[in-house]
């Protein structure tokens, strides 16, 4: 019980946390953006493809979903360069990993959204003479987006938190910054309190922003 909180050392090194948070956000935004592209393309392909393609896409999704992210991070950062002659930085390596990872989750979100678009709407698109591509862009995707927004928000928040795994390959994001301060000041309670608060506030801000978007879309339904 003799422990007294002392945040002075934390504030002195706060740039590690602040810079870390910005990098965390950057990693998340880039990975999610790439993941959205992967997810959309594969989901659209999945719902219109034959059994072979479906099996391959399903295998990718199942593989990613059943392997811990930290393992994938090790695999891409240490494993791949040992096998093929390819050098990349730790942040790049992590972005690649998290993109592929988020892609797998987003395929599932988008796929179920696409399948939930009422058939009548697609019929209506056909009936006015839209081509398959026009039906996808002007009818199916807008409705799918509306349906999937809540699930998307949850996935985005989750992926933002997953950036903390990048610390295991020394990417100086928020969790790594916290560890650095801990190792150098031994103020373990203080540093993790502050870091937790930073994750919380950022996560909540993200969620709030996404809920605003959701509400706007819901009103427009």
């Amino acid at each position, binding site marked *: 019980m003799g422990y007294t909180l002392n945040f002075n050392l934390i504030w002195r090194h706060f740039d590690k946390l602040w810079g870390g948070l910005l990098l965390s956000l950057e990693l998340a935004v880039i990975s999610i953006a790439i993941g959205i592209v992967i997810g959309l393309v594969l989901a659209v392909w999945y719902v219109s493809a034959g059994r072979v393609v479906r099996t391959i896409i399903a295998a990718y999704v199942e593989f990613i979903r059943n392997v811990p992210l930290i393992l994938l991070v090790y695999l891409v950062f240490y494993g791949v360069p040992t096998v093929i002659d390819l050098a990349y930085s730790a942040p790049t390596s992590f972005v690649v990993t998290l993109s592929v990872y988020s892609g797998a989750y987003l395929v599932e979100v988008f796929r179920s959204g696409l399948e939930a678009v009422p058939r009548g709407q697609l019929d209506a698109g056909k009936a006015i003479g839209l081509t398959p591509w026009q039906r996808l862009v*002007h009818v199916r995707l807008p409705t799918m987006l509306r349906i999937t927004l809540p699930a998307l928000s949850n996935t985005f928040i989750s992926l933002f938190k997953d950036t903390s795994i990048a610390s295991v390959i020394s990417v100086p994001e928020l969790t790594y910054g916290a560890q650095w301060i801990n190792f150098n000041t031994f103020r373990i309670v203080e540093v993790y309190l502050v870091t937790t608060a930073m994750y919380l506030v950022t996560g909540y801000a993200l969620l709030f922003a996404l809920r605003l978007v959701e509400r706007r879309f819901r009103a427009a339904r």
Partner: protein
Amino acid sequence: MATSSNNSPALLEIAEVSKSFGPVAVLRSVSLQVAKGEVVTIIGPSGSGKTTLLRCVNFLESYDSGSIRIDGKEVGYRDAGTRQRRSERDLAAMRAETGMVFQSFNLFPHLTAAGNIMLGLTKVRGKGSAEARAIAEHWLARVGLAHKADSLPAELSGGQQQRVGIARAVAMEPKILLLDEITSALDPELVGEVLAVVKSLAEDGMTMVMVTHEMAFARDASSRIVFMADGGVSAVGPPKEVLAAETTNERLRTFLARFRASHF
């Protein structure tokens, strides 16, 4: 081909069309001709193939044999003989020539009333958005919804949504309008406003094929009534003949009797 035309060639020619879902035959050699300006209503018990027939006309459903022509042009296949399916692009172009109104309205939920009408005009007809907007407003006024142009479907009543559905279909200036039980999902008090719009289109000479359970409307507004049973055309003729109580057609008599019993 089925026994064909008198003097004016039919706008829509359905000849010996058959279709099965697995072992179930839903259409059995159905033939029907509709002349320009005619209003043909299709009645019959559920499961008799009415809706399926209608959906074959704009190829939302494929059919196994027979031929459907609009203005002499085969609808879903390059020609009835080879039964080679048209390309998606061709099909889209063909479908733009027929309008369809659905039982469940099927408006695009993310677009306003005007937006629903403008989508086909801009993307299919290639009109500029100002022109498309003007056309949309014209048709919305025509169905009594000029003031709802910027409302989303969710903000409209069922009857209003269906009137937008009709406006969306006719704004494309289709050669023929297909109406699939368009009042079945509506509360009784909203049926009238929708049927009034259909009636005014009929008076303008729009060619229509309409599947309906509204017998009074079928009697008053149709040129001919088709009675379907078990996937085939069981009776066809002017309303007075088909709806005559003393018909010798056993199936028709049962259907009408049951209908009168449940609706009056």
